[in-house]
């Protein structure tokens, strides 16, 4: 049966929501329910789910609060991608369906299932605690509230974007490492750690960093960029991850960490064979110029830990690799000089 959301406006389209269902009290395993409704232009996935809950099946369970893309409650997978239900347009999703007219809705991955589209957020909170995702102020307690720290606009911009994070866990759900290793720090927590570490008011930078370079920490990241691509607030999460790695190397010396050793091998790879999954991914996502400017200098500092997915055919192109090598050498020189300059200061 087709239910109607709203009668007016020019267009309406029939949509089937294929929704993941699981109630641990009665179900031995998850299954999908289909709900077909008629949705007008401008209707969001969340409004549709609300409609289904109110009019068709009140047992359908999901979280929602602000309904305006601010609170981060309604993270779920729509047509396979983790996002906010309240800011996703049904009509747009209709163009992305694998089966025409059927929008698939599933819970976020890598967090324990509770019921239907609801997953447990506690593991994420635990990680925020583990990695001290807070400012431990340099202001003595007795002085609190008496005066402001002076913070430059430039410093503010270092963490401005990172503080946009609403902890919706979309990036967590998309992270490739987390799916294999639940103990991995998580992109959102790396982002938050970065935000704290570049704040001049904070006093525990070293404590946080020491934790970040341990097992399951920053070196486990494969540089796959999926977190950044799926971030609902378009936060450049990878910049934060790069910065933490750079920071780690600078603080502890490049030969000091296991991550750095892998990075060395990885560097050889880039130059000699061009077998570089982690470099081509960002190229595909961000373009060649961006990659050379942003990623390579960092790679030169031997930051990227090598993972072992097979080399993509893309880098076999002889022409491509030539340009790549030339630019790479130039960048290496630049970075060396930069480095010397900063260290002299």
């Amino acid at each position, binding site marked *: 049966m087709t239910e109607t959301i709203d009668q007016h406006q020019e267009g309406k389209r029939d949509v089937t929501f294929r929704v993941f269902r699981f109630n641990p009290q009665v179900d031995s395993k998850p299954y999908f329910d289909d709900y077909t409704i008629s949705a007008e232009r401008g209707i969001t996935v969340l409004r549709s789910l609300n409609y289904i809950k109110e009019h068709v099946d009140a047992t359908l369970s999901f979280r929602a*609060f602000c309904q305006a893309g*601010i609170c981060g409650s309604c993270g779920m997978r729509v047509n396979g991608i983790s996002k906010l239900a309240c800011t996703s347009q049904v009509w747009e999703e209709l163009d992305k369906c694998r089966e025409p007219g059927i929008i698939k809705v599933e819970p976020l991955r890598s967090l324990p299932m509770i019921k239907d589209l609801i997953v447990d957020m506690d593991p994420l909170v635990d990680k925020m605690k583990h990695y001290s995702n807070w*400012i431990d102020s340099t*202001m003595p307690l007795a002085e609190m509230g008496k005066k402001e720290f002076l913070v430059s606009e430039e410093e503010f911009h270092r963490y*401005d974007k990172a503080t946009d994070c609403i902890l919706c866990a979309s990036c967590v759900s998309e992270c490739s490492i987390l799916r294999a290793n639940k103990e991995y720090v998580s992109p959102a927590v790396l982002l938050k750690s970065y935000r704290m570490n570049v704040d001049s008011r904070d006093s525990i930078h070293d404590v946080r960093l020491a934790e970040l370079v341990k097992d399951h920490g920053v070196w486990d990241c494969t540089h796959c960029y999926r977190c950044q691509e799926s971030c609902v607030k378009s936060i450049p999460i990878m910049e934060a991850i790069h910065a933490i790695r750079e920071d780690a190397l600078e603080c502890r010396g490049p030969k000091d960490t296991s991550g750095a050793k892998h990075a060395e091998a990885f560097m050889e790879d880039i130059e000699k064979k061009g077998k570089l999954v982690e470099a081509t991914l960002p190229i595909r996502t961000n373009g060649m110029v961006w990659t050379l400017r942003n990623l390579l200098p960092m790679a030169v500092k031997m930051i990227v830990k090598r993972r072992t997915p097979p080399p993509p055919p893309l880098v076999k192109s002889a022409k491509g690799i030539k340009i790549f090598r030339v630019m790479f050498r130039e960048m290496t020189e630049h970075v060396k000089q930069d480095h010397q300059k900063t260290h002299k200061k």
Partner: protein
Amino acid sequence: MKPFDIVIVGGGGAGLYAAMEAMKTNPALNIAVLSKVYPNRSHTSAAQGGANAALGNKAKDDTIEMHIFDTIKGSDYLADQDAVEVLCSEAPKIIRELENIGTPWSRLDDNTIAQRPFGGAGRPRCCYCADKTGHTILQTLYEQCLRKGVLFFNEYFALNLSVNGSRSRGLIAMNMKTGKVEAFPAKTVIFATGGYAKMYWNRSSNAAGNSGDGQAIAFRAGIPMKDMEFVQFHPTGLRKSGLLVTEGARGEGGYLINKDGERFMARYAKEKMELGPRDLVSRSIETEILEGRGFNSPAGKYIHLDLRHLGADLIKSRLPQIREMSLNFEGVDPIEEPIPVRPTAHYSMGGIDTDNFGRTVMDGVYAAGECACVSVHGANRLGGNSLLDILVFGRIVGHTAAEEAGKFSPATISEAELKESVDELRNRMQPSGHYERYGALREELGQTLALNVGIFRESSLLHKGIQDIAELKERFKKVRVFDSSDVFNTNLMQVLELQNMLELAETVAVGALAREESRGSHTRIDFPVRDDEKWHKHTLATLVDGKVLPGEKPVTMGRYELQERTY
């Protein structure tokens, strides 16, 4: 469960500040924070504009005194002047304290906290972090609470107070993850559950859970509500959802247009046009709609907010968020089409009656934040004063409860009492004889409130509103909970929220009918002027034998004499 010294209900700005301060005041205390959503999801995160404090960073000649006066005037002289003095005097300190613990405030050229002008303020004193002030304040407080190891009970839904005579013994709440009803025996309970403006449902800018749970729980326990009739409307909410289109749209030069294509603000505010004060613009839009010059749609009547003449470039560069909202929630691109809007219920000035320390009339029960009415906002809240309110009074209430918890003997909640709550829920979940749909009741409540207890009020409308609410309450007895599962029963939770909204709605309507004058947000067509002689006082609503008993309380005056409020 181990008895607590302090149980805080609510993890928004007010609740988290209270928790931090209570721990600081006495680290030996056993403190818990309960929240029906993860604290960082609380509605505090929605505040974009900022928080007021006379730091004098932007305007060197700004003073606390001026902030006090602006607030009292803004309140239409209904705020208690001693409370306002506390609010404004503590403001600079609390904003700096937040700065000291990591809130990423935007900065001025001299690297101090940035401030901008805000409605009703004589100086630019609204401290902000881009357009995400509430969000960053809430994050900071949550981070600090995690740092200090505050004990959180996340996704616990508070049901009722346990009361023994004039004193509370603690709280009864449901663990959403298991459906289990649990007792939280406590010497003191602090309510910080946020506002009740969501009772206007699709005509509200609030989050779905702003159903006034704390107020309703306190109300059921016999604690009076104060000034409930005062609900602030924002002129431009989206037609379908009530979500806010911020002032920025009109600030950049957007037009308000009726169905005849007129820029109708010319009739109401010739000079300021679309940029008149919030309440005036809200009333003007409502008048257009009531007089038949609005557009019609099944989602309700509305008018147009037209940005098209501003051009694609300006819209994209200066108003990207408004464009996104409009696309996301109305499916309308403001570059090509006008945005359908109408006034939306935005903030609840009324709430649990407290003194300046957050104490209620019941021993051991406190309240702070939007759920409390101290009162610092009186008949009308100034933009940027609400975040300030939750911080200042959140801190005060945390301190007070920590100091006073020692006064009370340890509390216990009996098994029998717990069972009563469980039985009540079981009965509510019985399928037989229950057939009403909660969604329909919720929608109808919103409609009758917007129509009869909305921007324009009048005796016969209010009577109709009160009657409708009574009927809805009757029908609610037959409401059906379709989900019978224990695990994360959001169906049950929404039904309980509806119950709370219904109970409070009556106090709003009754207060509005009683107050035979127009003051601040409360506009009576049949009593169009402020009547200080009869109505310069707070109204109270107390539940006695199942009935709302009206009462009153004097306004605390101070240095500022009553004046006409003109801008």
